[in-house]
């Protein structure tokens, strides 16, 4: 009798029966800015889910692990979540390299993965034959599709013809650069310059001089946050005349919007705090209430959506059976801060969430990021400097 | 100890082990060694003396191959080794012990000597080299210290090690650079005995020395250097009787008639 009681208590304490989701994020290392933002998104979602009754009648349980932005750390941490913490589902994932590194164990354990980041094409290859891989973030070719769409709009409305490309020489900037140039040309643009630079070196003098000689309408810049201010400064200083500076760093420098040099620079985001959509406003309010401040990192709402939809699917499936949950998650059709979310095939994977249509183009206008395209979401008219 | 003192007439019939022909070495504007010529015969102990700055150590560096001469040739056992590396000269039969002892500090005494035995001559296996090193330690009175770290030795033991290690390369000619420096008189006498025993084993010795009694006791022949040049050559008595040599050592009176 006593023994039974004890077992019962232990069971309750250990949370047996509660659904457990493992979250692997870069909380340290090069991807930590996005990782920390995502972590907040997950915590917010967890609060809401458990306040609404949890999953399968029990409070949902999250287990966080830090992949250190490095494959050698990611693999053991992933295995730990799956085998030690015995999580039922995996979520998270930001960097492509770590995601590829865990594709092996993921297949070995046949892990259910609801993945938010990792946009590089090799990730798609690595998970192409994985049955339970749900990818929320658009693949990099979708990103480019969105950019091309915007540039075509600029061609129509502003007469933009000449594009100069500045890309960092690492994997982030160089990914598919040849295809990018080809696509621009095919769309009727002149690629008047295509230059590599070393990220973090801050030495943009020669590059901008070269751009000046090429007389572009648009400077398309693919680099990191460290390059944003040096590039903007150099452009201003050398007085390079451009219709638009368009950049796609994974994150922007802290406080960049307050710098006058940031004015009119345009960029790409899946989401902005100022987004007018109802879901986004709800998210912003909840986030502010929980954390007392706001983030501009779209990984926060992305993580939030990720966990909310996963929890909803498990509840609909009525069990943690992977096939049933997968079937339910695949049927997701819900409004999110990014617009409606549904899953469909991508080039190589079964379940792709957001695609090119979800991207927003914004400009730094007067101390904040303001959506300017697609036109239906634009809050202010865009500024074209030619 | 058989007195192996060679008269020049006898020596000329001996095999020539080392011959320097007009060796010169220039460092920038300074001619440190100037047209030095001498011959050493088999079994002979040859001393090179001279006041500080006479160019003795530079000469030794030219002989062992640390420097390439600006002019002149060097023959070792009949072979021209002027352009050859230090290790090649070692293989050809030239050994050297340094003035400032340079044991390998992280090795044991025995390992230090093993290095010499192992690489000094081609085709020596490691077990053979280790055996030879032990033999040499016994011969040089270091047997009790074989497993000590080299940095634990006393200065005299260091010097013994330096000589033992050089001998381990099985040289025909051994260059000794002021090995007596820093030794007390009693210790220096022990070191003299050591060099004698080296000669007894058929090795020719060329040494630089400042301590005159040592030169007197050891050298068969003496080469006196001053200002980079050979000032005199001959037996110890001959050179010390040479007024030029005395002047070089004791100073002339020129300096005073001011």
């Amino acid at each position, binding site marked *: 009798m006593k023994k039974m009681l004890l077992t019962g208590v232990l069971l309750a304490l250990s949370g047996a029966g509660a659904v457990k989701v493992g979250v692997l994020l870069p909380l*340290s290392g090069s991807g*930590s800015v996005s990782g920390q933002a995502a972590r907040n998104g997950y915590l917010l979602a967890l609060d809401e889910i458990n306040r609404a009754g949890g999953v399968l009648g029990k409070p949902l349980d999250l287990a966080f692990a*830090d992949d*250190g932005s490095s*494959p*050698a*750390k990611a693999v*053991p941490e992933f*295995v*730990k979540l799956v*085998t*030690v913490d*015995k999580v039922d589902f995996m979520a998270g994932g930001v960097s492509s*390299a770590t995601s*590829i*590194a865990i*594709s*092996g*164990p993921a*297949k*070995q354990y046949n892990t259910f993965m609801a993945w938010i980041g990792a946009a*590089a094409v*090799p990730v798609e290859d*690595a998970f192409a034959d994985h049955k339970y891989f749900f990818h929320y973030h658009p693949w990099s070719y979708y990103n480019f599709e969105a950019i091309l769409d915007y540039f075509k709009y600029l061609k129509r409305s502003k007469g933009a013809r000449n594009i100069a490309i500045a890309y960092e*020489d*690492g*994997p982030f900037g*160089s*990914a598919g650069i*040849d295809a990018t140039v080809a696509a621009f040309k095919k769309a009727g643009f002149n690629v008047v310059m295509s230059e590599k630079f070393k990220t973090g070196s801050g030495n943009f003098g020669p590059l901008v001089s070269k751009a000046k000689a090429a007389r572009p309408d648009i400077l398309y810049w693919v680099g990191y946050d460290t390059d944003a201010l040096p590039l903007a400064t150099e452009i201003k200083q050398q007085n390079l005349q451009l219709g638009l500076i368009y950049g796609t760093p994974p994150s922007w420098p802290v406080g960049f919007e307050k710098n006058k040099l940031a004015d009119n620079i345009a960029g790409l985001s899946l989401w902005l705090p100022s987004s007018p959509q109802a879901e986004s406003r709800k998210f912003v309010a909840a986030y502010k209430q929980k954390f007392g401040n706001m983030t501009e990192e779209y990984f926060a709402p992305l993580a939030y959506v990720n966990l909310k939809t996963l929890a909803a699917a498990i509840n609909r499936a009525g069990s943690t059976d992977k096939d049933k949950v997968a079937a339910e998650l695949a049927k997701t059709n819900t409004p999110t801060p990014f617009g409606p979310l549904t899953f469909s095939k991508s080039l190589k994977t079964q379940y792709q969430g957001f695609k090119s249509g979800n991207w927003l183009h914004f400009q730094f206008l007067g101390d904040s990021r303001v959506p300017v395209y697609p036109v239906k979401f634009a809050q202010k008219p865009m500024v074209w400097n030619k | 100890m058989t007195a192996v003192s060679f008269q020049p007439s006898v020596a000329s019939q001996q095999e020539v082990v080392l011959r320097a022909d007009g060796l010169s070495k220039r460092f920038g504007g300074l001619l440190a060694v100037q047209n030095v010529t001498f011959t050493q015969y088999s079994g002979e102990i040859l001393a090179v003396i001279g006041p500080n700055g006479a160019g003795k150590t530079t000469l030794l560096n030219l002989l062992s191959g*640390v420097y390439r001469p600006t002019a002149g040739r060097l023959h070792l056992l009949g072979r021209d080794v002027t352009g050859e*590396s*230090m*290790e090649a000269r*070692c*293989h050809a039969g030239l050994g050297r012990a340094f003035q400032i002892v*340079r044991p*390998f*500090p*992280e*090795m*044991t005494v025995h*390992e230090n000597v*093993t*290095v010499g035995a*192992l*690489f*000094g*001559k081609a085709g020596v296996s490691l077990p053979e080299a*280790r055996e030879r090193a032990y033999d040499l330690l*016994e011969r040089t*009175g270091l*047997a*009790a210290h*074989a497993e*000590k770290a080299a940095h634990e030795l006393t200065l005299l033991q260091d010097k013994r090690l330096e000589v033992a290690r*050089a001998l*381990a*390369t099985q040289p025909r000619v051994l260059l000794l650079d002021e090995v007596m420096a820093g030794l007390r008189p009693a210790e220096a006498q*022990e070191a003299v005995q050591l060099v004698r025993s080296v000669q007894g084993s058929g090795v020719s010795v060329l040494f630089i020395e400042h301590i005159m009694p040592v030169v007197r006791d050891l050298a068969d022949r003496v080469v006196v250097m001053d200002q980079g040049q050979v000032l005199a050559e001959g037996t110890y008595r001959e050179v010390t009787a040479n007024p030029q040599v005395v002047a070089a050592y004791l100073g002339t009176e020129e300096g005073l008639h001011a």
Partner: protein
Amino acid sequence: MSRAMETSRTVTRRPDFTARALVPLGLFFGLALVFPFLPLGTRAEYLLQIAFFTLVAAILALSWDILARSGQVSLAHAAFYGLGAYGFALLGKVMPWFAAMPLAALIAGLVSLILGAVTLRLSGMYFAIATLAFTEVVRTIIQNLPESVAGGANGLLVPALLGGNARAQYFLAFGVLLFTALVSLAIRRSRLHHAFAAIRQGEETARVLGVSVVRYKLAAFFISSFLAALGGVLFAGKTFFINPLETFSLANSIAPLTTSIFGGLYTTLGPMLGATVLRVAEELLHNSVKNGYLVVYGLVLMLTILWLPRGLMGLLRRGKHGGEL
């Protein structure tokens, strides 16, 4: 020689190598061998992954140490590690792994001979900077090769080693570390050990004693980079993906150096112990400290230099000189 006569004239001739010295090493490998079979409960598989990367870190540290034994403190280890990884990524597509692995290592070994030959006369700071510069040049070249050749800056997918079987991979890494340790021991028992040590402790003296410095320095380079490249193969085959920026990063050159110094330079067991302790410490720390947990690496390096010149091995074998493994 009166005073010398007082001491004994004969000496106990000790063998160079006693089996007893192998006991700690045997323990290490014995433990590593049974590790996957230990009843570690739910943590077993996770610990197996950690253990795999620890073995790789040990391979890199020990191979770095072999080069350091010849007095060449290199910052080019990342280059050879990376060449191994890249060699395997490319060769592994056209041949079985057991052929691609040694071939990739051989390529790295041959490239190291070039570096070794031109840096022969450099030492200390100059050698370190030259090897660092070499690594940067290799990285840039690989990064700027056409994407169809080596994947450019994007990197390459790497064929999975042993079908991604974690336990099999562990034993392969175990095998490579064992091989590395055996090479290290073989060096210890051969003339290479004496040549390396002599060159390190006095290059000119070594030459006077007949050591062919060029030959032995190059040998050290070849052996070290060959083994480092095997470590690179293991890493790449485990993580399926490499890119120039991460593979050739300075951190990959510094980690083996720190590990060896912490564990104990110029020994076989030291770098392996260093890798084990540091890796475990890192694992414990990075879950509690997050950002900047590598502070420990800096601290360990500084404290070791200031207070523990012979590393962990110095703690284990106080006051013993020479003859160490």
